[in-house]
């Protein structure tokens, strides 16, 4: 899961990173900092794993007031 601040939400971390990158000479217009959460889950199908991941984001991993999330699922092939 990729959880990051929604558009329009003040992201002080992103702003600090953006300033720092500019100081290093990189042409950065905007930086936003989120977090990646890697999970290994037991699920029968990719769809089941995805719907579990969605519930996890809604309940705990993201705060919908300020954060959006994206989910990518890969089958481990066990």
């Amino acid at each position, binding site marked *: 899961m990729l959880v990051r601040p929604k558009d329009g939400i003040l992201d002080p971390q992103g702003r600090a990173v953006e300033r720092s990158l500019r100081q290093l000479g990189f042409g950065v217009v905007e930086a936003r900092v989120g977090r990646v959460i890697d999970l290994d889950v037991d699920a029968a199908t990719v769809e089941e794993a995805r719907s579990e991941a969605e519930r996890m984001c809604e309940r*705990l991993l993201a705060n919908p*007031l300020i954060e959006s999330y994206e989910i990518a699922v890969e089958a481990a092939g066990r």
Partner: protein
Amino acid sequence: MSEPRPRIAVLVFPGSNDDYDAAWALSALGAEPVAVWHAERELPRVEAVVLPGGFSYGDYLRAGAIARFAPAMEAVAAFAAGGGPVLGICNGFQILCEAGLLPGVLRPNESLSFVCRDVAVRVERTDTPFTSRCAEGQRLVVPVKHGEGCFHADEELLAELEAAGQVVLRYEPGENPNGSVADVAAVASATGNVLGLMPHPEHAVDPLLGSGDGGLLLASLVDAARERLYARA
């Protein structure tokens, strides 16, 4: 003292660090504090609940995000639903927001710096269990110490909160330590019996430490708790 001492629960999470100060302050102001470990499923018989400051669960993920699922929080939600007064201080405020008992959310400070200093706040409402001893417009000096105290509500929610008078304390002009929207320092639930604030009233009870203004807020809570005790009798 002839007045009865109402019992007030002080929740203790792994990482709470102001629980003893809160208990000391409540006791100094005429209540009997009762420490309640986060893993308890029920509250003992109490007339009010305080969620103290600290860094529950290391502030991992988001401040308050993990503590809200502590077993004791269900009991706190039920207590609040029954009209019981619940006060969240700093990390307690963050937990109440994450739990949905208070509107909005607390974000990392705009400055990204931890702030630790006295701030002046203005009392916007006195008809709450937390401000009854204050005068409207009164200026209180109370310390803050936090890294994630920037209150955020989107425009729509903020307009709702303002219209309903749920902003109970506001940082005085130029005093906002964290970038909170509309200088919000304390927010109440729509029902008025749940309040969260970033400043630490328990650190401003004895004037020897610079200000006794926090004592007004906590003494208001003790009054409200005592009234509940009388109502119960």
